[in-house]
Every structure is written in C-alpha cells, then in structure tokens.
C-alpha cells in the first residue's frame, strides 16, 4: 500500500547568479541572458517525495509544472531523478498569473490526478519570491498545510498521519497532521539526488504529448498504466477543467504597476568624501533605491 504523492515544481530564471547584463535599459529583466533552472527549493521538495516513496514501496511520485513549453526541461529532470509521472500545464490563457491564479490552475491539475495523500511544494520560487503558491493551493484544495518543512520526522501510513519539522524564526516546531496535506519544503533537510544515468537514457527523448481527455482515476488504482510513462503529459486549460475567468491575468487581482532595477554596474563607483554631508547623501541614496530600509 503506497502513497500518492504530487510535487509542484517551477522553472525559474537563475536570479542568484545575476550578471551586469541581466537588466535591460528600461529596467525590465532580460530573461534571455538568465539561464532557466529548476527552482532550487523544488529540487528539495522532489527529493522529500522520493524519500517518502523509497520508504513506502508502491508509492507514486507525480510532478506538475505550469509554464511555457520550455518548462518541459524541469519535468525531464524530474524523470531523470525518479518521478513516475509528469505533466506540463501550459496554455496562453495562464499567462500573467499572480499567485492566486497560479494556485487555481495547479489545484485543477492536482484534482485531475486525484486521490493524493501529500502535495509537496518548494517553500519559495527565486523569481516571484512570494512563497504564496503553496498555502494558496492548499486552501483551494480545501486541505491543511505545513509550511517551511525542513524534514519529515515520521509517516504513519495506517493512521494516515505525518509529523514534520517546521522551521520558524530562531528555531523549529514539530507539527502532527493527517493526510491529505500540503507541505512546502526548505533547502535545509534534503539533498537532491543526482539524475540517474539509466533514467537519462530512458527519458532523454521524452517529449510533451497531448493526452486524450479520457484520463481517469483508474490510472491510480490499476496495475497497468494507461498512460505511457515516457510521455510528458501536456494539459491545457480544458484538460484540467479550469474556468478561464480564474486563470492568468483575468484571475489575478494584483497588478505590477512599476518595476525598478536595483543593479548597479561596478564602473558606477562613487567616491564619497569623509564628511557628514557626503555620508548622509550616500545613506539617502541607499534608502531611496530600497537598499536600506
């Protein structure tokens, strides 16, 4: 008797290694020069799920991402590391989503898989940086959550219970809760396994395929997989039965009004005189460009 596990992963621009050319003249992000990577904490979430699977034979790890077609790369990487089933949800109508619209689409995809016990998210994505998608997905599913999980302490399959260590300011707490549950995972307790060479050979040519609408729950219970595991499932707005008014820009109450770059080129070095006036001027500059609060 295994567990049904779902991991939400995001492809992100590598904002942790931003060079001088990462910002365009107009202050917008030049995504073209930033390599797209697997959101770091999502690798830890995937590892947490794979560990649960290792300890509970018969479990299945499903990985879902929402993004443009290029996000297929994080799904392939998930297959290389041990995922059993992957799906890309992609549709122009998802574009411009804030966290509310993102979590709505993810909720629809999770419900399409159905019968889940644990949903794993990263704590936070390194581009939007909100850490809101996990809790909002849990709320939309109507399930409980444990955020900032550094480690799963115990899983009791019979009682359908979990105990997890949750990092808080200056310490941690141990939380006990029942399935189904959503966890957001930090980068503290799990170290992502490397891609397996055999799995790379198996999946390297996997491509996204539209699966027929007849994906039903028999997949979960049946011993025969109806869907080829070499295929990356591609789901559009209809495939996950999402309502268009809740998706993308239309479903997003927050709007970006303005974006300012905080990158300074190093040739911008300013020599500041050792006087009260000059130092005060520098402090004011740092406050007005939000470097200092």
């Amino acid at each position, binding site marked *: 008797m295994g567990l049904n596990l779902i991991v939400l992963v995001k492809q992100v621009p590598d904002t*942790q290694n*931003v060079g001088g050319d990462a*910002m365009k003249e107009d202050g917008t*992000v030049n995504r073209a020069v930033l390599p797209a990577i697997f959101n770091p904490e999502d690798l830890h979430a995937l590892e947490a799920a794979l560990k649960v699977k290792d300890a509970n034979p018969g479990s299945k790890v499903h990985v879902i991402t929402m993004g443009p077609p290029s996000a297929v790369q994080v799904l392939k990487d998930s297959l290389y590391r041990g995922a059993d089933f992957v799906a890309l949800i992609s549709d122009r109508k998802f574009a411009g989503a804030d*966290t*509310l619209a993102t*979590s709505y689409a993810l909720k629809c995809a999770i419900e399409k898989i159905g019968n889940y016990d644990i949903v794993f998210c990263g704590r936070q994505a*390194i*581009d*939007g*940086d*909100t*850490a*809101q*998608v*996990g*809790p*909002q997905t849990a*709320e939309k599913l109507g399930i*409980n959550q*444990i*955020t900032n999980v550094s480690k799963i302490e115990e899983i009791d399959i019979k009682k359908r219970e979990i105990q997890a260590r949750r*990092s*808080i*300011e*200056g*310490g941690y*707490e*141990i*939380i*006990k*809760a029942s399935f189904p549950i959503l966890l957001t995972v930090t980068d503290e307790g799990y170290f992502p396994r490397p891609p397996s060479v055999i799995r790379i050979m198996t999946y390297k040519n996997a491509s996204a395929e539209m699966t027929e609408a007849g994906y039903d729950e028999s997949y979960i219970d049946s011993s025969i997989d109806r869907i080829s595991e070499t295929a990356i499932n591609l789901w559009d707005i209809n495939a996950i039965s999402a309502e268009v008014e809740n998706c993308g820009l239309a479903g*997003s*109450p*927050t709007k*970006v*009004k*303005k*974006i300012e*770059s*905080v*990158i*300074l080129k*190093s040739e*911008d*070095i*300013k*020599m*500041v005189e*050792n006087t*009260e006036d000059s*130092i005060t001027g*520098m*402090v004011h500059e*740092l*406050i007005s460009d*939000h*470097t*200092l*609060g």
Partner: protein
Amino acid sequence: MSSNNSVMVFIQQDDAKVADVSIELLSKARDLADQLKTSVSGVLIGSGIKGEAEKLIQYGVDEVFIIEDTRLGDYTPMPYTKIMVEIIKKMKPQIVLYGATTTGRDVGPRVASNLKVGLTADCTSLEIGDYSSKEVDYSNILYQIRPAFGGNIVATIVSPEKKPQMATVREGVMKVGTPDSKYKGKITNFEVALSDSDFPSVVIKKIKEEKLVDLKGAQVIVSGGVGVGSKENFGLILKLAHTLGGEVGASRAAVDAGFVSKEHQVGQTGTTVRPKLYIACGISGSIQHRAGMDESARIIAINTDHEAPIFQISNYGIVGDLNDVIPKFIKAFKAKG
C-alpha cells in the same frame, strides 16, 4: 469610529507576547489611516492575551478584536484562517497587513485565496496613491512596494479592484510610532464558533535555538577586517550592523586575530554571501575575501588606503579611518526620514 473600511493589522503573538513586527505594522497602519481618514483595527488571536491587547491602543489603534481560546495559543493555519476570513467579511477593512514572518506568510495567502483577493508578498514600503487602468481611475490605492527576483528588482504592486488590499510586510522596515498613553481605543471580543475539526494540526513541540549567525539570509552585512584593530573596537562594526538591521561579517585575518568568531567569516573558506548591501570596513579586498562577497548587490568600502583593491569592486568608496567614518554613518542613518 467604526472598524468598517479600516486599516486592519493581523497581530502576531508568540507565547502570548505580541511580536515586534505587529507593533511596527500598527504604527504604519496609523499613518496610512490618517492619510485615508479612516480608523485602525487589530486582530489578536490566542490564549490569555487580553493584557497584551490593552498595550496596543497607545499606538493609535481604534479597536482591537480579540479571539481567545486555549486551543489558539499556538499558531496553526486552519483556525487562524477561519477567524481572519470571518472578521474581514464582517468588518470589511479596506487594507489588511500581516508581518512577513513564518506565521504571516502562512496565514495571509490562505486568507487571500479564500476571499479571492490579492496579496503582495514581503513588502518593504507602503504608500497611498492613485492608479488608472483600462480607463478606470482609482484613487487612494495602496502601493505595495517589494523586492523580487532575488532582490534584483523592486516592484510596485497594486490590487485596485478588490477589497481588502492585503500585504505581508517585512520585519524591521516600518518605524515604531511614539506611544500615546491617552489614545482612546476599545477592545472587543469577537466570537467565532470553533469545533475540534477546526484544529487538524497539533504543535507537538516548539524549540527555540540559540540565535546563530545568519549571513546567508542577511540583506545587509557589515564586515570588519584587520583595519578594525582590536576585539574591543569590533564593537563599532556590531553597532553599525545593529543600526542597519544587518548581520556581522569578517575577513579571515580578523577571525584569525580573534576579533570575532569563525561563523562570521566571509570568503572562499568562509560563507559566500549575496546581500543587498555589503559594507567592508578595514578590509583590503583579497581575492579570497572577494570570492565570498563580490556578488553583493551593492558594496561600500571604508579604508584608509585609497589603493586598496576592495575599491575596485565597490559601488561607494570612502577613503578614511573607519573609527571616524562609522559614527558618521550611524548618525546619518538614525537621522533618516
């Protein structure tokens, strides 16, 4: 004044003590409410918290709602969300603020999702202004200003169409207002029916560890090198770091000289850091030191030697004795705003 249309603050308590960030937010809420000509309300959820509620009024709070239940002593998401949703539906605040703490960032998103309203994450500044979109003009909208993209950009976010406008706000960025012991506000018990099924999570234990040095998570780092001169004088570095709300770093030579412990070391054999601001005081800028800090968004170097290599990678350079420069820096920052 009624709490209808108020600026509301979710007041966080830990072990029945109000969190600092909540006082900061109440002070900011007062400021916003004055601009909007409305009232400030607070929501305090917990057990044995009435005395704490009374202490909040002096920050200009018109009404504190308290929800007391022994099962609410420790924060857990489900009952707290239920309470916030009910009170927001009843009181119809125009703005709701949460601290961007592990608690605020756990409950805020759930409340926003339930109410289908926007939530801006981890704001460092809040302002009131106008906004136009699709030929609709909105006045007195909350500008929610926040860093994103790993701190590489600052975005101004608005949620003009739906009320309340909600945000989580970073700790330590809003100034605490001057308390006014004569301020008149009231404390109101707010009833929410809770059954055992509203408490699916149990906090089995809570461990507070001794605070370790958190160089990785720091937005501002003030580092000292050999130029600081002595262990005693390193107090100056600590003082600047404390004033700016930052963490303390050091060069290896300063660690080797015993000025400060090894956990503070930045560099190739220490910690690699990428704060928004790195201030190098009395550090020459060896390649091994630079390897650990040259990706900081902004670097300030303070050094007596105008040829010190650290200046080559700095955004601001001050040639001078750190004993003289740092006090001026502290004074300038304290006088801000």
